[in-house]
């Protein structure tokens, strides 16, 4: 298959998944509302202690992003599996890895990117300074694709398994931990004056690793699930 064919198929899958997300808005909004609510409850619960809020802000935002991303994972392949689309994708003349990559990109656009864009607004509740908010957005922009890539592997492995929702959290959460540590660490070290470069570089390295292995591992997992 020619390279242009592969690229147009990649674009087509992304457009298809975005179109489906538009028609099923409640699924997308559930993830976003969850993120907003969890993050907003902390300042209300802790009260107006600025120092404390500033200190916990990066961790709270990242933990909420992790959980929100995990909330949307079981749906990543379940609908396509149930109505037979996944079989058709596995039998396509386009390599399954390309189609899976497209689905992961669409998943990030729908459930990762909005979290990064909402973060500065939510960060204001924690009295984070503007430059720290910038670092926060940057860290989320690098880190949320990692969540989608690793999450897709877990979603593929638990596809068709009863109680897959619980299993996927057990599988995926330990692998999310590096993203959590470096993502939240970037903002903390920036606030403490050490600079965020080291953490962001490590996060980006983690993204490169996940981008390389994620789609491949997901494809293998899906082929096994379809057998």
């Amino acid at each position: 298959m020619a390279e242009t064919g592969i690229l147009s198929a990649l674009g087509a899958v992304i457009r298809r998944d975005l179109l489906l997300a538009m028609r099923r808005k409640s699924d997308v909004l559930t993830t976003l509302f969850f993120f907003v609510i969890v993050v907003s409850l902390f300042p209300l619960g802790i009260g107006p202690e600025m120092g404390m809020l500033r200190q916990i802000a990066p961790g709270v935002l990242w933990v909420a992003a992790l959980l929100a991303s995990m909330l949307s994972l079981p749906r990543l392949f379940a609908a396509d599996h149930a109505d037979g689309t996944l079989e058709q994708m596995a039998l396509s003349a386009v390599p399954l890895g390309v189609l899976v990559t497209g689905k992961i990109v669409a998943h990030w656009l729908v459930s990762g990117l909005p979290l990064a864009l909402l973060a500065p607004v939510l960060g204001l509740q924690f009295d984070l300074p503007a430059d720290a908010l910038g670092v926060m957005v940057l860290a989320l922009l690098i880190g949320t694709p990692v969540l989608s890539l690793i999450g897709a592997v877990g979603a593929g492995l638990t596809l068709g398994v009863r109680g897959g929702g619980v299993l996927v959290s057990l599988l995926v959460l330990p692998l999310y931990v590096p993203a959590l540590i470096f993502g939240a660490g970037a903002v903390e070290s920036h606030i403490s004056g050490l600079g965020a470069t080291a953490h962001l570089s490590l996060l980006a390295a983690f993204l490169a690793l996940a981008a390389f292995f994620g789609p491949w591992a997901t494809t293998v997992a899906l082929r096994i699930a379809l057998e």
Partner: protein
Amino acid sequence: MLEASNLECVRGEKSLFRGLSFRLAAGACLMVQGANGSGKTSLLRMLCGLSPPAQGEIRWKGEPIRRLAEDYRGELLYCGHAGAVKDELTALENARISATLAGAPVDEEAARAALRQLGLKGREDLPARVLSAGQKRRVALTRLLLEKRRLWVLDEPLTALDKAAVANLCGVIDAHLAGGGMAVLTSHQDLPLAGRVEHLRLD
């Protein structure tokens, strides 16, 4: 062209069939028959390469399909029990998107023509959610017209179709076979095809 030798299918502890061999030449149609649970769908999924046979080998033009991978899938069209029709999308979007996902994009006019040919005129822009089971099946079957593939593997293509649609589908399959295509299908109903049909019983 398509050649299966000494296939065995094992489900759990039970062997559904073993020692199954057949050849399918260009223009031929193979009708797989058997009781419920006799392994018809398992055989069809094997022929597509979705699940590997416990024993034996499937070859396409003399090459094992495992090795051909995407080259084989480019000549194959599988239509299973699940029609891969999305409720949220319109009939037209479903037809065009499934063709694109299969690696054979079509323009809107071709997709509309295919839907009309299968008797879905005036339903093209309705979401599949409001279509009846038979109409959804017709949307799924537009792939036969839109993707130019040599080998069709159809699992119970007649489910939920009315008489007119069955006759229509038979015409489509006949035209495909007359053009040198091949088809493997299962059906519990009679399929009045014009060409020669070979039968394979799984019992």
